[in-house]
């Protein structure tokens, strides 16, 4: 469906928000007491922030939650029974104030979860979300969306894209059926476009991802990996805050004779990720794990899923305890 441009007065934003919040779950960003930006379900409109550069965690947990129960089972001496979970009870969720880098991540996650065999849990959750994005009018030194084929106002993965206009109102680009259906619920709030210019942040291009991808196929044994990963302490922060990291672990848990098998987040930064029961570990030291993280996102995924495994949101670099700045390392890889 082709995009229609509408505009929204600043005051009608609250009416739109409250209309959505009254009828269904809405996931919107607020600023917490210790200056962190966190997405919450149905916060008060006055707490919702429009000025954030990035939230601490991404919104991938709506489609790839920290814990996904795969099935329940009951174990008795005579027999075991498996009970499936009815995925239809997954609620509809409207995502509000998501930046273009996060909304672009949903398609990359689909290229992982629905590659070759479709993952029902993920695709059911993806169907249930409606994404209202907010293009960026602010950026900082960690942003590099323009280096991964995105931009502060790219509309990938968005149903309605709001963009701040110079007069303080908002332009609304209605992009998909879902967006259209949502607008039809409150048509009077959306007026004809006012022709005002959008306020869009500038994000400097830091590296040419095509050159990085081509260089990566020849640098597997390069000393770059050891030299540039010595300070990495091997935690999972970069993987868990990343909107595109989808590696998971499968665990069982029982209480008496009942139990469940669930899927939870995992990170290639941990040594346990690839440890064999025999004790052998194909990735014994941290530089091999750091290499795997970059190779997977910038070499293996372009090759297998023809999608870069990164949306340039900069969370991994801003959350890293030792400032493993991904854009800086990719820049170095580009000129290696």
């Amino acid at each position: 469906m082709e995009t229609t441009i509408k505009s929204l007065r600043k005051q009608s934003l609250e009416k739109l928000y409250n209309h959505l919040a009254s009828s269904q779950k809405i996931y919107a960003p607020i600023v917490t007491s210790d200056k962190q930006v966190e997405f919450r379900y149905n916060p008060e409109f006055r707490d919702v922030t429009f000025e954030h550069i990035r939230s601490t965690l991404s919104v991938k947990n709506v489609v790839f939650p920290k814990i996904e129960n795969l099935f329940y089972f009951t174990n008795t001496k005579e027999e075991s029974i498996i009970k499936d979970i009815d995925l239809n009870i997954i609620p509809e969720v409207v995502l509000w104030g998501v930046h273009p880098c996060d909304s672009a991540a949903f398609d990359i996650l689909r290229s992982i979860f629905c590659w070759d065999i479709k993952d029902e849990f993920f695709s059911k959750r993806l169907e249930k979300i409606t994404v209202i994005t907010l293009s960026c009018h602010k950026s900082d030194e960690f942003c590099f969306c323009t280096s991964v084929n995105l931009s502060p106002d790219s509309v990938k993965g968005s149903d309605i894209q709001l963009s701040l206009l110079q007069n303080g109102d908002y332009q609304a680009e209605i992009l998909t059926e879902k967006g259209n259906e949502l607008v039809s619920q409150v048509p009077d709030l959306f007026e004809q476009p006012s022709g005002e210019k959008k306020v869009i942040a500038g994000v400097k291009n830091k590296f040419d991802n095509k050159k990085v991808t081509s260089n990566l196929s020849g640098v597997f044994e390069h000393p770059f990996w050891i030299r540039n990963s010595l300070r990495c302490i091997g935690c999972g922060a970069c993987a868990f805050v990343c909107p595109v990291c989808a590696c998971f672990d499968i665990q069982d848990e029982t209480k008496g004779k009942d139990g469940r098998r669930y899927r939870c987040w995992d990170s290639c930064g941990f040594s346990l990720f690839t440890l064999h029961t025999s004790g052998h570990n194909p990735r014994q030291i941290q530089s091999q794990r750091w290499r795997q993280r970059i190779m997977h996102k910038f070499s293996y995924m372009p090759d297998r899923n023809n999608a870069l495994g990164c949306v340039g949101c900069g969370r991994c670099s801003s959350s890293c305890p030792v400032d493993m700045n991904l854009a800086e390392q990719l820049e170095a890889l580009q000129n290696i």
Partner: protein
Amino acid sequence: MNSLVNRAKMLLEEKSVNVVIGYEAGTGGTARPAFISESADAEKLIYNEHCVHNLAVYLSKQEVRKMGKIGIVAALPVMRSILMLIAEHQVDPENIVIMGISHDGSLLDIENIQVMKDYISKSDPGNPERYKDKLAELNKLSMEERFEYWQKELSKCIKCYACRQACPMCYCTRCAVEVNQPQWISVKSDISGNMEWHILRAMHLAGRCISCGECGRACPVGIDCHLLTMHLSDQVYKYFRVYAGLSEKMSSVLSTYEPNDKENFII
């Protein structure tokens, strides 16, 4: 500042160390750990108020151990961590050269462990000032309020283990959470899984944590988990009159005992 750079250059040129672990400028005016193995790169070394990372965490990494003799830039917390690591036989004092840094950033002359211990003894070994009021505030709450507070805080935890990886005292090759026979600490990151993890971490650091606050700073979701270990370091002093990281001969608080340890709750 150039005295630090010159010292590093001299150490590297004389081959008395194979690598100097220090700080370099990071993104957006911050600082980050740096490994300098060429004397030419010594200029990168800086020291300012952003240099807070506890560099002692690298001394127990297998790749760093293979580098031979190590020079390490050490402010007070790093020095105390090094003493703790020596006390727990993780670091051989002959293998490190300590480039001490005072509060105002000037280079100290630390030739051996004894000099370092004297420098440390001149400072207050308790929790740093900036954490004391938050600890006091929590201690004033009622039990239910504290339980509410920690449930809210720990529900944010995503089990990324940055608190564990940033701590020099968490050097176990296979951490208790990575043992799955039995899976003692549940892997999932709901409140109970997080509560079990943070309680285990605090108990395993009781009497060993030198209150550098790195675990709280490293947490990406801003949980002040350093308050747990700092509270326990206060309690360890209150009951056993011991602070961690003040001597290289200290035995671990929870695996030793004094027959007359005072307690008022065992009937």
